[in-house]
């Protein structure tokens, strides 16, 4: 067990080391997310609609789009220099490889989201502190589901020539439950409703997380097989 954890942390550490060196992924994701928000501000007339209803949608679209960029990039790097080959030659369990990649993707996305939230607060004049604990929890469980399925599919799409296009095409229809649930929950939380009012959504999102981590554990051997 201890060894397994060491393997997982080694992969996470590797991803952070690469990122600290290249500084490619994170800046791209963040700037892209800001641009997505900006485009929404231009296309949706915010003087007519209620920000508490539209804001969470815009926020999550920014999270999911820039998250997709992150997923694509993270496996591209593995492929480019034959890093994935090297990882697969090491005597570690494939699931450790999955959890390492999944957790590093999750960490990048969460840091990006943490930086984006203050901007969101400023741009849309939303009070995030009223229900901060619930808000962070909602964002966490939504992002875990996205990364759980996203890492599996990006490790699969990473082998294709058309990986940049195929990842979103495979991923977006499947994350509909997360997209709807996370936006609903965020919107309710921002309007001051307690988490106990939305157990159905919390349960649904948590089941999504568990189901796709489970599916990934069962199938990752077949995806990373060469």
């Amino acid at each position: 067990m201890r060894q397994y954890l060491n393997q997982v942390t080694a992969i996470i550490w590797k991803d952070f080391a690469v990122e600290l060196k290249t500084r490619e992924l994170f800046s791209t994701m963040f700037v892209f997310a800001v641009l997505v928000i900006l485009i929404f501000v231009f296309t949706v007339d915010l003087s007519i609609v209620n920000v508490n209803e539209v804001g969470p949608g815009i926020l999550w679209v920014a999270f999911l789009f820039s998250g997709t960029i992150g997923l694509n990039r993270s496996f591209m790097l593995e492929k480019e220099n034959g890093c994935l080959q090297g990882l697969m030659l090491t005597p570690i369990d494939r699931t450790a490889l999955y959890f390492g990649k999944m957790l590093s993707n999750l960490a990048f996305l969460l840091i990006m989201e943490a930086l984006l939230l203050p901007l969101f607060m400023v741009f849309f004049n939303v009070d995030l502190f009223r229900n901060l604990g619930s808000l962070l929890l909602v964002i966490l469980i939504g992002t875990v589901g996205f990364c759980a399925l996203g890492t599996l599919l990006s490790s699969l799409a990473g082998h294709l020539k058309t990986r940049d296009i195929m990842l979103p095409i495979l991923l977006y229809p499947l994350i509909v439950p997360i997209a709807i649930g996370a936006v609903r929950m965020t919107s309710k939380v921002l309007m001051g409703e307690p988490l106990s009012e939305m157990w159905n959504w919390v349960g649904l999102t948590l089941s999504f997380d568990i189901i796709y981590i489970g599916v990934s554990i069962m199938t990752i051997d077949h995806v990373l097989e060469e």
Partner: protein
Amino acid sequence: MNEETSAPEESGHVLFWLTCAGLATALWAIFLFVPTEKTEGAVQRIMYFHIPSAWLAFFAFFIVFVSSILFLWKKDREWDIYAQSSAEIGVVFCSLVLITGPIWAKPIWGAWWVWDARLTSTLILWLIYVAYLMLRGHVESGSARARYAAVVGIAGFLDIPLIHFSVLWWRTFHPKPKIISAEGLGTGMDTTMLVTLLLSLGAFTLLYFLLLGQRIEIEKTKDEIDHLKKERLYSH
């Protein structure tokens, strides 16, 4: 022709004629036997195509799911062929659901499309399996294609209940299920309508198996041709 090949051919013929008879009976029932619905009029008859197509699409995707699991377990090309063939048929019938729905909805609801729970779920389902088929198109044939497709086939089907509930809590206007309702089996519907619907369901199910058999046959022939080509190539 030897014994082994003539036996499935024989059963194929039986299935073919059974399907023809079933579809003919269903068509007769839909257009001549069943009375026109009082409030909705003639357009209501599209239901007898709409519901069986939806059932078939769902059943086909279930077969994709089962075949995908069996493929990853047994690593037998046979199951990969089943999954692919069933996915193709499922997408065709799912498209039919998405086409027949708006034709009915325009005169009844006054709009081609509303973002109702079931319409939305069906559209997402269609997108998932179109993506599945695209993925198959983007990988060269072989073990990798079958493995990736199987993973998506499993992930896609497990998402259906989650999509169902998320979209249901999001919104719903679709007519409530009429056959299996809370009041008991078939109480929401006139007997002649129920019989017609069941006939149509039966005929469509037969059609599914007929198409599946044909599609599997084509895929196997393709495999055989590839095999022969390679054999020829290396024998010179």
